């Protein structure tokens, strides 16, 4: 997929996310929008995960530790052919449906049940370590929120990752600088974050996490160093793509109204038209 195609995908994904959240009446809107471009590049460009190979162990793996942003994962997995997109309109946030507000393995394409923050990295370390022990060549990608990093387990797992030299592990931080209560730096300061990760033994790279081209270039270079886990500090904007949601704390789990949805879709359609002109 070339850059223009990836850009188009991101717009389509954003539209679907907004539509299914609006339709289902619940969702973690802004956190899903902030990492759309990351999942887009991972699933369309970097990772070897398909409905056909999903049942085999020796393929790439993706664990979304920030499970609350499940809508982006559902949207991308539908696009990858794991189930029809229509299932999301029928099912998201509906009683008796499997498309609930956090990822579960009942949904095709989902690797691990998440939702309680601060679990995904430890599980990813285990999965990467199993790959090493079994002599498999797969890689394990995991996506964490920045607020999530307050959980001590993330740092315990980081030590293990470096200790076991897991260069098949790629940790991506959705660094949108917001959590529920406010700015991460006001709630529980994380900086200097890159230095901390470097000190914990990662090969650290920073990237504009809403730039599909920069993400593609960077992620195709993993592992960044032999013998070290890779860490991508992806600087993102929470609510990215919808002007009135961008960098706004209130959109963490707010659902757009009918009018708000119309405005958002219009903005995204305009962005799409502009792309066409390129």
């Amino acid at each position: 997929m070339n850059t223009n195609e990836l850009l188009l995908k991101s717009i389509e994904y954003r539209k679907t996310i907004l539509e299914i959240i609006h339709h289902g009446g619940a969702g973690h809107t802004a956190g899903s929008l902030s990492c759309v471009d990351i999942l887009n590049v991972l699933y369309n460009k970097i990772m070897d995960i398909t409905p056909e190979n999903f049942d085999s162990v020796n393929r790439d793996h993706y664990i979304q530790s920030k499970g609350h942003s499940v809508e982006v994962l559902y949207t991308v997995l539908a696009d990858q052919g794991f189930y029809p997109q229509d299932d999301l309109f029928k099912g998201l946030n509906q009683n008796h449906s499997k498309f609930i507000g956090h990822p579960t393995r009942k949904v095709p394409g989902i690797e691990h049940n998440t939702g309680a923050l601060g679990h995904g990295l430890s599980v990813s370390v285990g999965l990467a370590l199993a790959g090493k022990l079994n002599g498999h060549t797969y890689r394990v990608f995991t996506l964490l929120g920045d607020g999530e990093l307050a959980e001590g387990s993330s740092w315990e797992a980081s030590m293990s990752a470096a200790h076991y030299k897991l260069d098949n592990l790629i940790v991506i931080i959705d660094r949108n600088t917001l959590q529920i209560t406010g700015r991460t730096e006001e709630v529980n300061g994380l900086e200097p974050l890159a230095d901390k990760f470097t000190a914990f033994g990662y090969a650290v790279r920073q990237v504009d996490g809403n730039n599909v081209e920069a993400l593609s270039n960077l992620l195709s270079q993993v592992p960044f160093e032999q013998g070290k886990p890779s860490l991508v500090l992806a600087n993102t904007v929470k609510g990215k793509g919808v002007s009135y949601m961008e960098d706004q704390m209130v959109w963490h789990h707010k659902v757009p109204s009918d009018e708000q949805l119309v405005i958002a879709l219009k903005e995204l359609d305009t962005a799409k038209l502009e792309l066409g002109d390129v």
Partner: protein
Amino acid sequence: MTIEPTMGKPNQQVFSDTLLEIAKQNENILVVTSDSRGSGKLVAFGQELPQQIVEVGIAEQNLIGISAGLSAGGKKVFAVSPACFVTIRSLEQVKNDVAYSDRDVCVVGISAGVSYGLLGSTHHAIHDYAALRCINNIDIIAPADNFETEQAVRALVHHPRPAYIRLGKRPMPNLHDPESTLFEIGKAIELRQGTDVTIIAIGEPTAHAVEAADILSRQGISCRVISMHTLRPFDKAALMDAARNSRAIITVEEHSVCGGLGELCASALLQEGIRIPFKIVGFPDEYTINGDQPTLFKHYGISGEGLVATACELLETCKSQM
């Protein structure tokens, strides 16, 4: 006196309103949160009393450890976080730093039970009674309505012991007449009198127990309802009185059937040598279905109708045993 339920507020809103009012007069009260002040309805508290709120970020183990330390430093601490995380992820801190070390920390579990319905099992707290019951030296309270919540918060402020209070997210019907009801931690409250069957309820299902009793009474069946708002210290006398003065007992809780109110009652009865038709209503030991709180309640019989059906079945077994 029997009151017809009117709709109140979410218990967690009543908790935060009451605590704010008290904390304005008592600067030693501290609220500690883990990116949870929004769900805990504590935004106003944070704005009005910024010196009396400590934020630790998304770190529930740290939350409880810090709370224990703040208590060691003389503070009266309310540690507020979703019940699903604070009673499991922080369980060792609760056990060692609060209960074992005997610190004056009130652990406040918000959005408890299956309040978070469709967010799934990671966000359900239907294990907390069991987890905490086998830890010595922590009181366990789950108010049914706004009155019980407000009274519990007032009592907890003057309760210098480890405690856990469990609060839900949905508006609750008012079940008590505040004028004529006395609330005391560890003392059950009789909401309906009756002699055929007794429903012992804790927390948000209590409203459904009352509904069931009212339906049963129209069918000529007299049903006692006990609000067992405190699991520890447990009001054994209220249980024994129900066992001696009614023909069957049902317990109902927004919890797994393992290790909660029902098993506590069953064990107490058996050890007193009492055998009585008995049924535990709660979540069975399996993956729950996906649904919001009302859907889950209905599916698992935690509803007026469901409890009526359970009562009728139990009373049938009474007949066949006669």
